[in-house]
């Protein structure tokens, strides 16, 4: 079976004062129906721009190449008008801040049903019934009452659940979740992650979770793609990638996380900061911050993500972490 979403060699150039600059550079990944895939990286890694491409929401003047094949539709180069049938209807989005996704002075009911009536052509009564169902799905207590309420009457976690309900209103096949839990408390985050996982299992929903938090991806994602400076650094099954990271950047991200299981120890940050748009160094974009960098890493061509194991791709020709034991990363940190 072909994947629901097949991204191949995606490039996005954004207009800047110094001419177009690549924000996304040769990114490829697949998403199957009923699968949660993670895009990981820090600010400026290109993860959000990838999502914006799939939603047809790139800023004016952006240029794209490559392909993003979504259930029979090619999204790269799709005209704005045609994108309207895809966005919201077949591909929906949930953002970090539910406050921006919900209209503050429209009731939850209006926001949910407008969407359905517009996209699905349901009658008012049918839309209302389905809205109640959706709110129950995302575990909003007393959905009937919630329909008459305004977003401000709910807590942050509840608002994010409602935003997910709105996103799901038109029965999309793919949900793009950009830092969906970053603004939430851990207890609420746990609820949202469980909700995404349940939607995936029960409704065959495909989800792309975009985050810098590898812990979140470990919980829900089956495959993880780590982006750095607009390029794919490493991608593979979550279980392999998070226990035996091969790219020094993936390793660095893991080391910078506090590890619940390990003894308390100072965090090990990656030195420096990620490159900004148009200032990506030549060669491997990560080389200035990499402890394993070799002279060959500092010159073009940029390393390509090549298969190193089944389903595991790596853009690091020296591959310094190959064959490292599958020890928990934290064990290294305590030394």
């Amino acid at each position, binding site marked *: 079976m072909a994947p629901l979403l097949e991204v191949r060699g995606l490039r996005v150039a954004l207009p800047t004062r110094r001419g177009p600059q690549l924000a996304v550079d040769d990114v490829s990944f697949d998403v199957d129906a009923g699968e949660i895939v993670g895009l990981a990286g820090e600010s400026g890694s290109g993860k959000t721009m990838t999502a914006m491409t799939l939603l047809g929401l790139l800023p004016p003047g952006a240029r794209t190449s490559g392909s993003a094949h979504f259930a029979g539709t090619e999204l790269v180069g799709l005209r704005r008008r045609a994108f309207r049938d895809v966005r919201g209807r077949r591909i929906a989005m949930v953002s970090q801040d539910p406050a921006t996704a919900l209209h503050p002075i429209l009731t939850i009911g209006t926001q949910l049903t407008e969407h359905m009536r517009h996209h699905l052509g349901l009658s008012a009564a049918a839309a209302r019934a389905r809205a109640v169902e959706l709110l129950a799905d995302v575990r909003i207590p007393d959905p009937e009452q919630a329909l008459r309420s305004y977003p401000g009457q709910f807590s942050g976690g509840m608002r994010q659940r409602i935003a997910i309900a709105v996103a799901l209103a038109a029965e999309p096949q793919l949900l793009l979740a950009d830092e969906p839990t970053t603004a939430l408390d851990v207890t609420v985050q746990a609820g949202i992650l*469980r909700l995404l996982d349940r939607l995936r299992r029960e409704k065959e929903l495909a989800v792309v979770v975009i985050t810098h938090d590898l812990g979140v991806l470990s919980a829900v994602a089956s495959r993880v793609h780590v982006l750095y400076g607009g390029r794919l650094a490493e991608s593979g099954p979550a279980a392999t990638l998070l226990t035996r990271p091969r790219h020094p950047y993936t390793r660095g991200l893991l080391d910078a996380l506090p590890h619940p299981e390990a003894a308390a120890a100072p965090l090990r940050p990656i030195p420096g900061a990620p490159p900004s748009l148009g200032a990506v160094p030549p060669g491997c974009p990560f080389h200035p911050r990499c402890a394993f960098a070799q002279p060959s890493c500092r010159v073009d061509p940029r390393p390509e993500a090549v298969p190193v194991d089944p389903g595991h791709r790596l853009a690091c020709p020296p591959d310094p972490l190959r064959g490292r034991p599958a020890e928990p990363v934290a064990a290294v940190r305590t030394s």
Partner: protein
Amino acid sequence: MTAPLLRLRDVAVEYGRGAARVRAVDGVDLDVRPGEILGLVGESGCGKSTLGRAATGLEPLARGTVEFLGRPVEPAGRRRRGADLRRLQMVFQDPYASLNPRRKVGELIADGVVLGGGRRADGLRRARELLERVGLPGDAVGSYPHEFSGGQRQRIAIARTLAADPACIVADEPISALDASAQAQVANLLSELVAEASLGMVFVSHDLSVVRQVAHRVAVMYLGRIVEIGDTATVWSDPRHPYTEALVAAIPRADGAGTLPVDLPGDVPDPAAPPSGCHFHPRCPLVQDRCRVQDPRLEPVAGRSAACLVRAPGSGNRAGAVPLTGPGRP
């Protein structure tokens, strides 16, 4: 044991008036000692930030006392903050909001010296030293805050407080707004500064996993009250309050095992109408009948203190009338 730098006793903070009055902080006792980082964790709306602001005298107290180096801390109002309180400083969450965008970094940091009666030239010299201390080039004094990234700005904000030669810093979510690797960098910087200068620090955060890495002691807050407090390692490895337990279980582990974190159902109740008895009882998996009527007190249990009738049934909790025991190490 050294005397605490910062001493809070029975602190309560209230917002609003009359029937709409909300008790954001309700009877909190805390001590912060030199060289110690005290983590203050809880969900949003639990009152941890309000408590942090009350500890620095930014919120008027409805009840109780805050003492810094033996002197009472009071909101300055319109008056100038007393010189003795200059050594009690605060680092804010949003490094985009805590630095005046129209002033140069050097001037901002020099304020710490100038406002203490120092000369501007000395302030600028100190600014260079402090910038280098926090890992930025000294010539950043001539730049404006917007020329820096979030993590760099947070370092500048930290340098600014250091210029006042603080003895104690309240850091309110100092790394939550930062990027992954900047979080670790700033957290480590704060740890180093505390160790170097024997500062006391209150580290307010919603992220128990971060607090656990930097804090020596941790206090867990729920709906304005401290429900568990003790050495970080003890509380973390063996939480006794069911709420602390839920917080620990909800942290996603980046272990690739695909384990879903444990959900704590329900929301933090409206602080204007807190539940009767133990505030946590509507969400508590261990709830018993008496939890709905009886207020639990912080009681020593297994090397820390917890306010739970089920898990920490101390004398106070049994009788329900024994005065508060001190927090901290029993």
